[in-house]
């Protein structure tokens, strides 16, 4: 990528972010809430995309990392009364640990085994949440007390019950994720991941420590997902077993596939579109996942590169 390509890409991403920030001034309260949710879920999908789109490893159990963040933050608030910033950190660290543990196991396998293994280990996480339901609240879940959702940051009091506050926190989270991903993936590490995705054997024979690179990608991917989970729990004040369930793992895949795997903004686009679609559909039927199933099949058959992936291929080769 030439530096002018990088500049074009940077400008595009900057514009998108500015627009996202500006929307809040025109949006209704309901829209603001929905967008907040979308942004947090987009961070989840972006974390997933680091592993799937950029490194070429399909994890079918990313919900376990999201869940680790949810419970890391949620339980420390609920049971230990920790203040929000500390709980957030706990969520991130918790998911990093889980990612390291699962990565150490899962990366010993390849292809189908890897996919199945990540699915199963995630399922174990889900079952453990159910099994220890006295602590976790199991299926029913736990609501975080109102009082816990006010905290002080750098002297200012932050009240998470305010939609505007939540929106901007989610926005900052997204901004940080985009910035970090951009730096990481544009640089040499991104090149290594891409090389691994395209041809692992070749990359090994060029002297790269492929195992270590994959492990880093895995842990970063899981930690970003966990960061989204911690944010979700804190911003919406609820933790529950569904966040570790297979549906969340499939949604991460679906959002990323639709928007364009291997593109930075693809997961964001996919999340926005799919969340809107799901919201419409679930008003009509409780079986909305039927349509998600069709979309998944259609994507694999006819549209594997997703929206931004196809755009990048046809018109904008400089798109990150």
């Amino acid at each position, binding site marked *: 990528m030439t530096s002018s390509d990088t500049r074009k890409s940077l400008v595009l991403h900057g514009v998108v972010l500015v627009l996202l920030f500006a929307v809040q001034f025109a949006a209704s309260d309901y829209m603001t809430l929905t967008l907040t949710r979308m942004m947090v879920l987009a961070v989840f999908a972006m974390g997933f995309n680091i592993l799937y789109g950029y490194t070429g490893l*399909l994890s*079918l159990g990313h919900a376990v990392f999201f869940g680790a963040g949810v419970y890391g933050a949620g339980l420390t608030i609920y049971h230990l009364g920790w203040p929000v910033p500390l709980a957030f950190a706990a969520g991130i660290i918790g998911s990093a640990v889980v990612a390291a543990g699962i990565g150490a*196991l*899962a990366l*010993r*396998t*390849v*292809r*189908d*085994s890897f*996919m*199945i*293994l990540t699915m*199963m*280990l995630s*399922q*174990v996480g889900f*079952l*453990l949440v*159910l*099994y220890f339901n006295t602590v976790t609240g199991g299926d029913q879940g736990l609501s975080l007390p109102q009082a816990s959702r006010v905290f002080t940051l750098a002297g200012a009091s932050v009240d998470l019950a305010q939609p505007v506050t939540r929106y901007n926190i989610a926005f900052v989270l997204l901004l940080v994720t985009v910035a970090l991903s951009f730096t990481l993936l544009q640089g040499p590490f991104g090149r290594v991941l891409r090389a691994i995705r395209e041809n692992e054997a070749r990359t090994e024979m060029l002297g790269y420590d492929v195992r270590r690179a994959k492990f880093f990608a895995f842990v970063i991917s899981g930690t970003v997902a966990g960061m989204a989970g911690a944010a979700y729990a804190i911003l919406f004040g609820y933790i529950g077993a569904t966040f570790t369930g297979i549906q969340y793992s*499939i949604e991460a*895949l679906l959002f990323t*596939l639709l928007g364009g795997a291997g593109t930075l903004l693809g997961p964001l686009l996919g999340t926005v579109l799919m969340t809107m679609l799901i919201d419409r559909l679930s008003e009509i*039927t*409780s*079986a*909305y*996942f*039927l349509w*998600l*199933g*069709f*979309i*998944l*099949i259609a*994507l*694999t*058959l006819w549209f*594997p590169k997703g929206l931004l992936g196809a755009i990048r291929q046809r018109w904008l080769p400089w798109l990150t």
Partner: protein
Amino acid sequence: MGLGPFFFLATLEGLVQASVLVLTAVGLALVFGVMRVVNVAHGEFFMLGAVTAWFVSSLFPDHPAIGFIAALVVSPLFVGTVAFISDRLILRRLKYNAESTIVATIGLLYVLQQSVLMSYGPDARPVDPPFYYTIRLPWFGYSSYKLFVIAAAAVLLGLIWFALKRTRWGLIMRATQFDSETAQAFGIPVERVYSAVFAIGAALAAVAAVLIVPIQQAHYLMGTDPLLLSFTVVIIGGLGSIQGTIIAAVLIGLSDGILSVFFSPTLAKIVSTLLVALVLVFRPNGLFAKARR
């Protein structure tokens, strides 16, 4: 009831579960073995079989035996057809690529599952067994239908084994599994074999479901457990190896049944999932490590 008889009861229950599991797992093993694809929707074929059985038997409200026999015929045929179509429309177009197939079958899982939710509804509905007869054992009464299930599974397994080892059809399937390129060179229509195998695998799951539905009720979410268990069986039993699958199914079905009786079902699931996860870790060359040319 003393501990001994209780354990015997648990074992019988385990055997019933194992019978159903072995049929489902062999269906999955055939698909794994011959087509080298992971079908995440396999559990939904099972569920579809059960729901179809309920539907068919509801057409014969006063004659459960006839309803049962009808279900035993119609259900595998219907489910097999659904599978056949799925293979033709989807899997074949994806050229059986590992990653795309998994993602597409996940989509298929949701399509099947939620279609049933929309048409059949979220309730669990019972089906009458074809006959009620309690066998009086010294310690407890036991349903003769459950014993029938065990016997039926054994007979079916024998038929499958015979078909695979002794008939021309079985030979074609085994040849395709062993080396599909050479098989094609010998004029074997590999793609058609794949469609047929996919259909047969699904039909087997449907038969298993028809057998179990008088004992368990038909519910749109009932596919998840059989999926996980048959994955476990096939992975532990050794892919493509029918004998291994049978042994593993008996062991796992038994232990899952017994564990569920003595401990919580959730714990049983955690243990079996972790077990197969560990097996996967120590098969670092992927699911299809068994030498394929």
